[in-house]
């Protein structure tokens, strides 16, 4: 159809290099650029986790999509200048992507941004904006190339979109693979090189005669990773990260480093000032921990790699932690340690004479460090008698096994500093949800204990939220929470026990004796008396005790509602255990700034919101700015104009809806595939792959009458709605059945489930674009940009909505948006 219509604008295309009528769209270069840009987005998340903190992940998503939105506007406004020079602009843009991908990061990490000071120092938000601006540029370059291709070859949106989206899929898998093979900085150089290679490939298309230049570019691309001076890109972590703080001490040195998509592990030795990591050790303890190496993940932590020579005595300090409590209530238990890390909890179990220990650890590199690289030091605890190691994700391991344990220990995995500052507020965690606790309880032998240790924060946050979660899990199982729970606390950590069965008088006596000997306070056990609490580590009010009682009592809902922080139990639908922020408390905390109130603010949430506002402002600017210019231009056009408002509505709606569905179902499938990386890679990649196929398929539906495109678009949207809603109901119970299957089979099933949904989701965009190209070609880049901007906002909004209403609500909203899109089809 659209071959007859001019590519864009109303002017005839000048006879520059774009005049070659036989030139084909640079499909492979588009794919390569999409892959590189997607990889760059993921890589930035990784890099910023290392140099700053991981809540920047959200910023990276919006930075990328903002670059896309800006590119749409830019191409819309400048298409008359750009289109005649398509080949040069494309190649130039691709090269610029390559250069700025590396330079943008190198410069961004030289901006002296310190998020910890953001509330105090007025220059900090400006610095954040500078980082935003710098990192936008590479995405802008790549997106300009892609957008210009859509505009130049307006008759073939289906083909271009399918390569674009396939590239993004390949990029998301490729970067995970690359991060196993290369250090993050190496992957950065490779992505830069990919940009230049895309430029070279675009010059080698049919009808192009720039072979010499292409060859030169290819050589440059190949050489780039080698010739970039290491100093430009070497990582400069914030001096406030735990690792940087430790390295500031004389004599400390890094003795090993491992990098994978799961994180950068750094092992540090400090002979003069040894690490002495015993979080919350009883003040009555006189023994100090044995020599330890510090293991940092992305510069945060540390967790301790403790020297173990088979002798029991040096491990005595492990009996002085609150987490040792369950061992005093059980005889030679069969123990399952979830999140075994560098092995402290396994040693604790060994110290207490556990009959067997099953240890689950996600990251094989930390296991390698403990078991091989530092085996002489660590005594290879994972191969001690009775200890079995399982490399895998904790929740999935529990759900897929049939074995029962006397004790399930959930280790203290996150760093205190980051946790207390609310930096994890936005990260989904399926380890501490009501459903997860039910799963753990289902794998306890009669009389067995689930023990979860958390950091103590004041006023209490995660401990009470955990307590509320345990109460909810027990109630769902029809158990008696008041009889089965116990909570003790030191000054730094608290341990919650959940028993499979009622706590006995002997249990309570042992618990009280354990706590008394270590000056830990009891906060709850069945039959507790207020006089027994708040004795050793005195709080102005016995908030843990009062909170526990309130959460077990009849006015629980009112208590949760009244509480200054959000302690609603986390569920699989709203898996935000670390989110404690409440709007109601914000004014009070801000008013208390001068008196040290700010540290109590959970930063993750306001940062997310600030990012959303930034994205909204930028998107509005990018959409409204060109609207005026374009409206004038289309009015002048002789071509039959279609309503710009309808185009905007349609592309905004499908932009939001696509991201909502994708993000919500990534979360759902995470529960099936459990391993966070494989899950995201598999789900994202299948989404994009099948959407790409759907896009190609939609190309066959074209008829001469452009208006006839409405029917397939409506059909696609109806299919998306039906499948999404069906999955919402069917997937959770189905996944529970599928859990015990082998991983490979689960991956195949996941792909099969995603295929029809994604296939349908691939169609609305190219169909709408084809319709726009037929009716108002000047609006094509703008439609593309509008869609990009909507996706920016959607990526952030999805998390925000999920925090408050859950992922199911996000999907329902997406279905409504798709319905709106169908109605607004231009």
């Amino acid at each position, binding site marked *: 159809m659209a071959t007859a219509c001019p590519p864009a604008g109303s002017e005839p295309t000048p006879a520059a290099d774009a005049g070659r009528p036989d030139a084909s769209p640079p499909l492979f270069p588009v794919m390569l650029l999409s892959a590189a840009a997607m990889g760059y987005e993921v890589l930035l998340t990784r890099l910023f986790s290392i140099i700053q903190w991981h809540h920047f992940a959200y910023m990276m998503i919006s930075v990328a999509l903002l670059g896309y939105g800006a590119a749409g506007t830019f191409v819309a406004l400048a298409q008359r200048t750009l289109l005649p020079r398509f080949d040069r602009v494309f190649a130039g843009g691709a090269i610029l992507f390559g250069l700025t991908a590396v330079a943008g990061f190198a410069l961004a990490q030289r901006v002296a941004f310190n998020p910890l000071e953001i509330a105090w120092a007025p220059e900090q938000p*400006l610095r954040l904006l500078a980082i935003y601006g710098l990192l936008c540029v590479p995405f802008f370059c790549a997106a300009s190339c892609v957008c210009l291709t859509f505009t130049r070859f307006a008759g073939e949106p289906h083909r271009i979109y399918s390569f674009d989206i396939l590239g993004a899929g390949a990029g998301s898998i490729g970067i995970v693979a690359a991060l196993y093979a290369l250090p993050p900085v190496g992957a950065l150089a490779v992505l830069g090189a990919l940009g230049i290679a895309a430029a070279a490939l675009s010059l080698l298309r049919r009808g192009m005669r720039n072979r010499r230049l292409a060859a030169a570019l290819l050589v440059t691309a190949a050489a780039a990773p080698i010739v970039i001076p290491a100093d430009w890109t070497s990582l400069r972590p914030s001096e406030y990260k735990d690792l940087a703080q430790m390295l500031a001490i004389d004599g400390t040195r890094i003795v090993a480093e491992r990098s994978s998509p799961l994180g950068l592990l750094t092992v540090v030795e400090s002979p003069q000032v040894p690490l002495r990591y015993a979080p919350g050790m009883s003040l009555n303890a006189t023994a100090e921990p044995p020599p330890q190496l510090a293991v940092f993940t992305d510069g945060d932590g540390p967790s301790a790699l403790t020297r173990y020579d088979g002798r029991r005595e040096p491990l005595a300090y492990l009996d002085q932690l609150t987490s040792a409590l369950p061992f005093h209530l059980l005889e030679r238990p069969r123990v399952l340690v979830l999140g075994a890390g560098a092995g402290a909890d396994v040693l604790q179990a060994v110290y207490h004479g556990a009959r067997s220990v099953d240890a689950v650890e996600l990251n094989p590199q930390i296991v390698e460090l403990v078991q091989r690289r530092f085996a002489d030091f660590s005594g290879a605890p994972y191969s001690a008698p009775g200890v079995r190691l399982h490399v895998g994700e904790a929740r999935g391991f529990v759900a897929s096994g049939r074995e029962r344990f006397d004790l399930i220990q959930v280790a203290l995995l996150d760093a205190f500093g980051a946790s207390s*500052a609310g930096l994890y507020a936005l990260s989904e965690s399926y380890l501490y949800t009501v459903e997860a606790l039910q799963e753990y309880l289902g794998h306890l032998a009669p009389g067995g204990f689930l023990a979860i240790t958390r950091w103590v924060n004041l006023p209490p946050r995660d401990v009470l939220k955990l307590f509320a979660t345990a109460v909810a899990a027990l109630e769902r199982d029809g158990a008696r929470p008041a009889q089965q729970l116990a909570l003790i606390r030191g000054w730094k950590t608290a341990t919650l026990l959940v028993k499979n069965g009622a706590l006995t008088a002997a249990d309570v006596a042992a618990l009280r004796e354990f706590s008394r000997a270590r000056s830990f306070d009891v906060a709850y056990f069945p039959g507790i008396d207020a006089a027994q609490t708040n004795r050793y580590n005195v709080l102005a009010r016995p908030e843990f005790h009062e909170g526990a009682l309130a959460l077990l009592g009849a006015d629980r809902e009112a208590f949760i509602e009244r509480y200054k922080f959000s302690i609603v139990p986390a569920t699989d639908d709203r898996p935000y255990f670390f989110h404690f922020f409440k709007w109601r408390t914000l004014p*009070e905390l801000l008013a208390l700034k001068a008196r040290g109130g700010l540290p109590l603010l959970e930063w993750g949430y306001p940062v997310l919101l600030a990012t959303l506002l930034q994205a909204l402002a930028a998107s509005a600017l990018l959409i409204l700015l060109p609207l005026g210019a374009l409206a004038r231009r289309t009015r002048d056009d002789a071509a039959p104009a279609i309503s710009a408002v309808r185009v905007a509505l349609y592309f905004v709606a499908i932009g939001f809806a696509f991201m909502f569905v994708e993000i919500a179902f990534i979360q759902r499938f995470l529960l099936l595939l459990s391993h966070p990386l494989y899950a995201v890679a598999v789900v994202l990649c299948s989404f994009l792959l099948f959407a790409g196929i759907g896009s190609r398929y939609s190309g066959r539906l074209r008829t001469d009458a452009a208006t006839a495109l409405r029917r397939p678009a409506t059909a696609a949207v109806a299919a998306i709605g039906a499948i999404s809603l069906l999955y919402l109901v069917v997937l959770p119970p189905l996944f529970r059945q599928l859990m015990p299957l082998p991983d490979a089979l689960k991956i195949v099933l996941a792909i099969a489930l995603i295929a029809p949904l994604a296939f349908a989701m691939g169609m609305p965009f190219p169909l709408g674009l084809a319709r726009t190209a037929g009716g108002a070609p000047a609006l094509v880049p703008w439609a593309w940009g509008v869609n990009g901007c909507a996706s920016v906002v959607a990526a952030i909004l999805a998390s925000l909505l999920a925090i408050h209403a859950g992922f199911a609500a996000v999907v329902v909203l997406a279905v409504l948006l798709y319905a709106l899109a169908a109605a607004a089809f231009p």
Partner: protein
Amino acid sequence: MTNHLVGFGRIFALLLVALAASPARAQDDFDRQRRQMVDEIAALARQTAAETGRPSLDPRVIAVLGKVPRHRFVPANQQQAAYQNRPLPIGWGQTISQPYIVALMTDLMNLRPEHTVLEIGTGSGYQAAILAELVQTVCSIEIIEPLARQAGERLRGLGYARLRTRTGDGYYGWADCGPFDAIIVTAAASHVPPPLIEQLKPGGRMVIPVGAPFLAQHLLLVEKNRDGTLLTRQVLPVQFVPLTGKR
């Protein structure tokens, strides 16, 4: 980029200050800012007392805050902010605490002139100077060598000659200097080092801020009873409107 702009803005501001004011007038300016800071903290303390019924800060502590030149303890590029009631970066990933928190920590130690105090984590030396104004003997240990050297020179330059500083590991305290009536541990610790508890006199008090840099969440107060047993308290610097509401 912004870095440079901010840097430029700062140079410009400094230039204006240099043109407009002689050193003596700059000194006057800092004195005035310090008085303002002290007034602010005193007002905050009075508010706290009014809201909670807890006694406000010891007037001696407030008086000392009005005496120690805080601007001499921060890097040159932070001097303009020295008397704002906020934490400031001092390099090597370390900070100088918010003045209100300094006042609160000092107050919690219940100091008397004849006391001997140990500080773990000298940092800029500001807290040490405050302590030295209040008690007879202050010993302060800093683990980061350049910071320790800098702080030592600074404190000597300001005339705190009796204040003893050294570079080293604070875990084992400073037995030669102790036992101590009070210990303040400003360095992050996963647990309270047993040797420090040992060096604390019966009746002595130890104060530890808990939280990330810039983000001290609450203060841990360890009291050693006359019989050697320990009592800890966790003190939230801020007073909420009653947290759980009416029950």
